[in-house]
């Protein structure tokens, strides 16, 4: 076995060179800034300098949003770096299967009707149970065709129609076959494409860096701190703009399709920096996740004609969505399956069947090869011969960092996009195929907004060395305190009980009594956090401490989900209150805002941006 000592420096750029870099729009001031740095060099030891990196733009997260945004700002000649706790190709975007919605109209609708962005927007707004901001939805749907085509030009291997155009399949809640796909590996194909583009531009990537705090000064976000996982060293990053693109918080729940790394780091970091979160109670449960492991089985399987069958052999969706049947939106289908199981029509253990057998071997192998492999590997079932056992599982976080359509937040210099953000294109329920779309559209658009802001000269003073050094010291001592504890709580057991609480008390069906219990349980869990003991006392490559920091983030988000869910006394989209079974537009056609005030979560509301489509009853 080949064993070599760990390479100490894997930083892509010379740090000193970074400190000399200049913001294009404020050359003069910057030069002054640098010279004052030079003056200070006696008090700043070289050691600390090597920990501090300066860019125009820092992007936290290397999934589709982060990579797309990085391309945009890099092409505008801004100096940008990506920070990610994993290699970008391990980001959860890679797991997206079914596709990306765009009204390309490559496939005609019923009776030769032709799709357009307005119908896409209507489907999205109706799917959102009217909680989406319609200005943001309009942008996303208008930009969708050019976004899919842009990826095609960058090299994505989209599946094709006989005429050579990009193939499209039907998806839940959509009036047209609108979902463009690359077999059932759409996320994989798109992520590899964008990574290729990032690599070809030599954009620096700080891989295996775990972000530990946002650094703010005078109500401006000036950068972040991050733990270099391999060495245990804390780094500081300074930038004119920081974009959060860290994905969702699915690992708050114990049955989730999400990657194990989806721990809501970005939402929690934002909350702690004084930024509000929006609509956190809206958590999507995907109807078809593999029984047991909860690995995603794409909605595309039903798009291609797959049907849901209960224990009695009945195709039950007709009882819940007489028109759309198995292709109703996810909230509707997930509730239907849970109801079937609760009423004794599920299989023992709590699942139903997704039957693809009638589609035939050829179609399954051509369009759904990935989920066939997953079914074989993880459930020992070949969908060509047997139905797939499925159950609903947490899948997507509609809520997130409160951001406007430019990704701007209440904190100047701090932006958010993708699943970690709530620009609010999904409202109370996201349509399948709209999340990949959102990541790439808003990765680019928010990239543009950042470029514009920096070129306007709203670059702030760059002499924030002291602030970032202070932030580094704070994190350093925090980690040391955690490691020095001689307490006895086991973090893995606490994580398990948090997951159980969230899934059993804040799952598909919710009511006050159960949620009250849940809130008390979260309080108990929160108290135990400071009693957790970590055995591994070294900071370098200590996964236990990374998992602990992730747990801290998750517990904080659990509170926001719980309080927001408790206060929303209505049923809308994914948020189903058995004690308030109807939608209540008079009281709750508004976004929930959760923020941290005096270390406590407070809940307030803000209006929804309506527009083209007036709220109506939502029937499928």
């Amino acid at each position: 076995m080949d064993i070599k000592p760990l390479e100490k420096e894997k930083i892509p750029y010379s740090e000193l060179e970074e400190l000399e870099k200049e913001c294009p729009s404020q050359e003069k001031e910057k030069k002054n800034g640098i010279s004052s740095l030079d003056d200070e060099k006696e008090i700043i030891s070289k050691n600390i300098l090597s920990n501090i990196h300066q860019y125009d733009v820092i992007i936290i997260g290397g999934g589709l949003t982060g990579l797309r945004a990085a391309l945009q700002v890099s092409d505008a000649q801004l100096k940008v770096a990506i920070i990610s706790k994993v290699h970008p190709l391990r980001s959860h975007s890679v797991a997206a299967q079914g596709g990306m919605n765009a009204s390309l109209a490559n496939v005609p609708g019923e009776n030769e009707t032709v799709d357009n962005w307005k119908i896409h927007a209507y489907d999205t707004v109706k799917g959102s149970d009217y909680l989406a901001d319609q200005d943001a939805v309009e942008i996303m749907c208008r930009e969708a065709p050019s976004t899919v085509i842009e990826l095609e030009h960058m090299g994505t291997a989209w599946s094709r129609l006989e005429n050579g155009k990009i193939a499209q399949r039907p998806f839940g809640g959509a009036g047209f076959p609108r979902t463009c796909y690359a077999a059932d590996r759409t996320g994989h194909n798109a992520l590899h494409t964008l990574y290729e583009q990032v690599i070809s531009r030599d954009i620096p990537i700080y891989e295996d860096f775990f972000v530990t705090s946002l650094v703010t000064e005078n109500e401006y976000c000036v950068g972040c701190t991050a733990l270099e996982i391999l060495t245990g060293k804390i780094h500081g990053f300074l930038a004119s703009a920081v974009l959060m693109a860290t994905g969702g918080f699915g690992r708050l729940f114990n049955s989730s399709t999400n990657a194990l790394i989806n721990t809501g780091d970005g939402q929690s970091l934002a909350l702690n920096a004084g930024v509000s979160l929006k609509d956190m109670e809206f958590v999507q449960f995907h109807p078809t996740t593999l029984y047991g492991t909860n690995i995603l089985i794409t909605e595309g399987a039903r798009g291609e004609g797959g049907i849901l069958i209960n224990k009695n052999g009945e195709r039950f969706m007709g009882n819940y969505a007489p028109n759309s049947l198995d292709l109703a939106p996810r909230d509707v289908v997930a509730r239907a399956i849970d109801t079937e199981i609760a009423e004794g029509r599920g299989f023992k253990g709590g699942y139903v069947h997704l039957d693809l057998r009638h589609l035939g071997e050829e179609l399954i192998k051509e369009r759904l090869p990935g989920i066939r492999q997953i079914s074989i590997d993880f459930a020992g079932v070949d969908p060509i011969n047997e139905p797939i056992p499925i159950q609903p599982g947490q899948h997507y976080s509609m809520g997130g960092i409160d951001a406007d359509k430019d990704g701007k937040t209440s904190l100047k210099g701090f932006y958010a996009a993708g699943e970690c953000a709530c620009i609010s294109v999904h409202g109370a329920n996201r349509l399948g195929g709209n999340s990949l779309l959102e990541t790439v559209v808003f990765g680019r658009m928010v990239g543009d907004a950042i470029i514009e802001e920096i070129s306007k000269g709203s670059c702030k003073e760059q002499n924030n060395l002291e602030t970032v050094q202070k932030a580094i010291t704070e994190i350093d001592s925090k980690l040391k305190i955690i490691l020095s504890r001689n307490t006895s709580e086991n973090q893995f057991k606490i994580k398990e009980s948090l997951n159980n609480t969230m899934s059993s008390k804040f799952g598909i069906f919710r009511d006050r009594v159960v949620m009250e219990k849940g809130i008390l349980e979260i309080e108990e869990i929160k108290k135990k956090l400071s009693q957790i003991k970590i055995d591994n006392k070294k900071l370098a490559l200590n996964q236990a401490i990374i998992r602990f920091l992730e747990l801290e983030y998750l517990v904080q988000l659990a509170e926001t989900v719980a309080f927001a869910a408790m206060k929303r006394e209505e049923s809308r989209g994914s948020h189903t209150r058995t004690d308030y079974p109807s939608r209540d537009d008079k009281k709750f056609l508004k976004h929930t805002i959760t923020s941290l005030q005096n270390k406590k979560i407070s809940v307030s509301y803000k209006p929804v941006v309506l527009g083209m489509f007036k709220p109506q009853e939502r029937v499928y």
Partner: protein
Amino acid sequence: MKLKVFRYHEGMSAPHYDTFSLEEEPSMTVLRALFQFQEQFDDSLAFQYSCRGSVCGACAMLINKVPRLACRTQVASLLKGEQQIALSPYPALEEKVGWDPSQEVLVEPLPHFPVVKDLIVDRNAFFKSYKFMEPVIKPESIPPKENLMDPSDLPDLELYTNCILCAACYGACPVDGENKDYLGPAALAKLYRFHIDPRDADNRRLEKADINNGWWACDFHGNCRQVCPKGVPPIMAIGQAQAELMEKKEKSEDKK
């Protein structure tokens, strides 16, 4: 059922193995077993993971002397003696420690990379080869709409776009073990992927690896194809590329 895990960290004089009795879980994967080890036995165990659904490629490691994804490999079927893959031998497959395959699952870091800690290796060399290939589409021109593509071109292209860059093939390739400068199966397959993409305008793609440590270094052991969790066949790409290059050379000789 037991897990026998390779342990090493900087400063240790030599690596050792830890053995841990597993608590049985239904359809337990090796990744789940590693988490059990970390959560119940020693929280300092280090291994990489992300998707746990065999799509991200983070958790490639040497399991029962075969490079595999930990998240895709079932403990029970290993113990039953299933999932055996006969690989062309290379030094990393030699038994350095005794283990009982009917009772134990042996987990070691992916061969041919420097070990950083326990099961984590430094894949830098792998991504350096990848980058060397200039893995990005180079179009002739950009049409206003999508490029049209014959759907019958896709199956071949998908064979290679399915690569998740987990590096299992690199850890399985005897040539990579002997020759650190060999570009390796995944990078070569990636280059071939761009070569056969009908949208790509660079007609000198294959020449990029027309060097001693490129196409010509392959000994056709075929381990790459056998261990690929996504069914990608780098050996086929390499064979095709060699044939095409030879044909090209013959043609240019003829012209002279």
